[in-house]
């Protein structure tokens, strides 16, 4: 089998402007949603209490909500988690002194519904069993956000430095621009659909950043090699050649990684759902941005043959 039977280098660079305009528009849209809607942070960031309970039969969520309200919980979220018998309850931080006791109080409240103690006892579904409780105090969330930002900064600096060392600063800068734009687009999707942004999602976003830089590295590697080996090609031609000769690897690798991620989406259950979703978006945009955004950027920044050949010319002079 051979999927990619390409006779000539595909003239990607001829359409460079179009690709960049598309990605600029997506980028701006993502920023717009981020600013306008904001991220839906999980309680790890915001603080609060989260309970996952499981019922023998599917409970009526409205009834649960009503009972919680009468028991003095305001602004809680009650929703199904995975199956109709599993319920996830989020209680935001309140100014009460005993925030760490909220979990017990919620369970008491749910038990009342389960026992049919409410006015309408037809909805009795038995007491729920507690599967998971998480409580996060207000001190923790802020730190997580700042640690996340610091991690991102370290990643960006590290990658730029490494690429500048191994290649050229032009490559480093354009790779990081292209891939930061991926990160913003993932975040934009999370803002648009109000998907929950949790710690694993943060990890996924950063992993995607490293992963799509890979992509740019593979292409740049080829660019360097082509510059060194083949004379008489213009910069756009070199870039086209590099992209064309790696495109098969790009698609296959991403396809394989995506198979793994899809498997996580299917079998991983709700706990890994958003993690896998962030990876999916990241992988799809990663191909696009690292190939079709990073390369034109390099071209516009004025990469040329001399930057790679220079080193070779200098060496013999130094010896003589």
């Amino acid at each position, binding site marked *: 089998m051979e999927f990619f039977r390409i006779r000539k280098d595909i003239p990607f660079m001829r359409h460079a402007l179009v690709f960049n305009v598309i990605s600029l528009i997506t980028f701006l849209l993502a920023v717009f949603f981020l600013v306008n809607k904001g991220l839906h942070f999980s309680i790890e960031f915001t603080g609060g209490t989260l309970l996952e309970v499981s019922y023998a039969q599917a409970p009526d969520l409205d009834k649960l909500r009503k009972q919680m309200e009468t028991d003095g919980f305001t602004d809680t979220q009650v929703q199904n988690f995975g199956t109709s018998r599993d319920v996830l309850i989020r209680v935001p931080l309140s100014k009460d002194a005993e925030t760490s006791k909220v979990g017990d109080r919620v369970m008491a409240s749910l038990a009342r519904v389960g026992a049919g103690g409410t006015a309408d006892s037809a909805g009795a579904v038995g007491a729920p069993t507690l*599967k998971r409780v998480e409580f996060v105090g207000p001190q923790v969330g802020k730190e997580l956000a700042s640690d996340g930002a610091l991690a991102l900064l370290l990643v960006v600096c590290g990658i730029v430095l490494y690429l500048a060392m191994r290649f050229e600063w032009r490559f480093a800068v354009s790779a990081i621009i292209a891939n930061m734009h991926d990160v913003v687009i993932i975040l934009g999707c999370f803002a648009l659909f109000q998907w929950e942004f949790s710690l694993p999602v943060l990890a996924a976003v950063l992993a995607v950043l490293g992963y799509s830089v890979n992509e740019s590295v593979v292409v740049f590697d080829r660019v360097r090699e082509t510059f060194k080996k083949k004379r008489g090609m213009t910069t756009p031609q070199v870039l086209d050649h590099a992209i064309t000769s790696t495109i098969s690897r790009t698609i296959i690798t991403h396809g394989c990684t995506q198979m793994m991620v899809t498997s996580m989406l299917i079998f991983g259950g709700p706990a890994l759902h958003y993690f896998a979703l962030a990876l999916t978006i990241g992988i799809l945009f990663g191909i696009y941005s690292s190939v079709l955004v990073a390369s034109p950027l390099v071209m516009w920044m004025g990469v040329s043959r001399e930057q790679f050949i220079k080193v070779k010319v200098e060496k013999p002079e130094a010896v003589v």
Partner: protein
Amino acid sequence: MNRYPLWKNATVLIALVLGLLYTLPNFFGEAPAVQVASVKSTHKVDAKLMAQVEDALKAASVVPQGIVLDLNSVRVRLADTDTQLKAKDVIEKALNPVAADATYSVALNLVSNSPNWLTGIHALPMYLGLDLRGGVHFLLQVDMKGALTKRLDSIGADLRSLMRDKNIRHGGISREGQTVAIRFREPDIREKARAALADSQPDLLVVDAQDGADLKLVATLKPEAQKRIQEFAVKQNITTLHNRINELGVAEPIIQQQGADRIVVQLPGVQDTAKAKDILGRTATLEVRMVDDEASANPSIMEQAARGQPPAGTEYYVERGGRGLLVKKQVVLTGERLTDAQPGFDNQTHEAAVHLSLDSAGARIFKDVTRESVGKRMAILLIEKGKGEVVTAPVIRSEIGGGRVQISGRMSTMEANDVALLLRAGSLAAPMEIIEERTIGPSLGADNIKKGFNSTLGGFAAIAVFMMAYYLLFGLVSVLALSANMLLLVALLSLLQATLTLPGIAAIALALGMAIDSNVLINERVREELRNGSTPQAAITAGYERAWATILDSNVTTLIVGVALLIFGSGAVRGFAVVHCLGILTSLFSSVIISRAVVNWIYGRRRKLERLSIGQVWKSGLSAK
């Protein structure tokens, strides 16, 4: 010719054998067990205890699968969870006849089913995080300001006895915020006091101050002393938590410092969070203070105090039994001076009581105070979560020496037990607050393992099928390399006993999904070399060599991400980062070195190699081969 030197083949072989060895324990699973450990340092875990456990089980006709004695515990392996529960009761009864005064902690646990020779080479199953095995996780924040105020309180008490010893007359010692102020009438006495302070309290920074007609010495803690006290407070709290958790009976608890002022507590397998939280969250400390008898006898002052306006220097408390009283803010003694607390009964009234033993400094202070205050009342307060409660406020009948003190006052036997446990387990050097709590039920844990495992397996299968269909024999080699990668990764995780969490399993899956990249790069390069007309053997060599630079670069960038996550991540992110980093290292080894070894083994010796089984190599302009 593509042949590896012997040492390279040997390295691959050794790595694989070690990988297999250390991965093995994960397949044996775990059996329910009961773990017995000593709570008191005077009682050692030894063969005698093992025999005792054995006898107790025999007497109750519970048949154990095996009894193992290790460094600090005896573990009894049992057939199923029912016998496990029964065995726990039996052992508990035999070893701790008095439940209140437990010598040994008896806890439910799991032990690995792997054979002894594996355990002997430290091949253990992966260490599962709480989200996979179920249990409770707490993050506690130590109140550092509280630690300093507490220390200043006890310094105040020390200064009082110092002034008395040196015969320096002063106009009162009080803590004001984060300082201790001593008042004087005359300047030369103040100078004398200053000299005494400089001798005996090197931690204090003393400055002069004037407050109206009064001369004052204001003492603050030096910054280095503050730092030492805070470090000590965290250490002391960790020790205290250890003691308390030992009394709870949890197998393999984790109690660690995190950052400057936080403590992580993880209790695997604990389901009764309410009890755990109760024991951990209780920040009970003992304080002995004097009762302001005059004011307490005055009804109008008491009425005002009950409304929240007690006279200066006193606090209003309600004694057990309902009567209010005013207690001076001055602390005579704190729980730090306590060496032991045991529940018992009062000799005369047969009321439940707690017997306290004080250390020598505490005993001396107690003796002095009781001698000077015969006929007055003394309040013993239990401070929990910043709120004090007067347990008892007896009248001092005579001087009490020897450091033996008894608290009794309308307590039930249960309460006496609890108070003794809390006091004995050591007081906390500073109050703590739970700032993060996570409880995961055991069924959810098992569910998470299953989901994580299925995701990895599903993805792996899909990749394997595709690779073999697309690259044929080279695809098979890639899949073998990928399997070796997984084997090594699991072995490394087992060997390091790094905590595996659900994000960690996701990281394993992702590591595999990304690791295939290296093999795709290699295979594509080999095809390209063939396309350009190289001979098969040359194509293999060139393919691997050319791909290596790219593989290295792309893995380093991924590793940068992993390291950043490792440095800044906590909890879920750290679990992900550890596996991510290890996965990159193992994938570099397996996808390049192991896969090359296999390729060499298949093709390396053949001199006349016509073609490689790497799928169709399509050449531009020619029809497919």
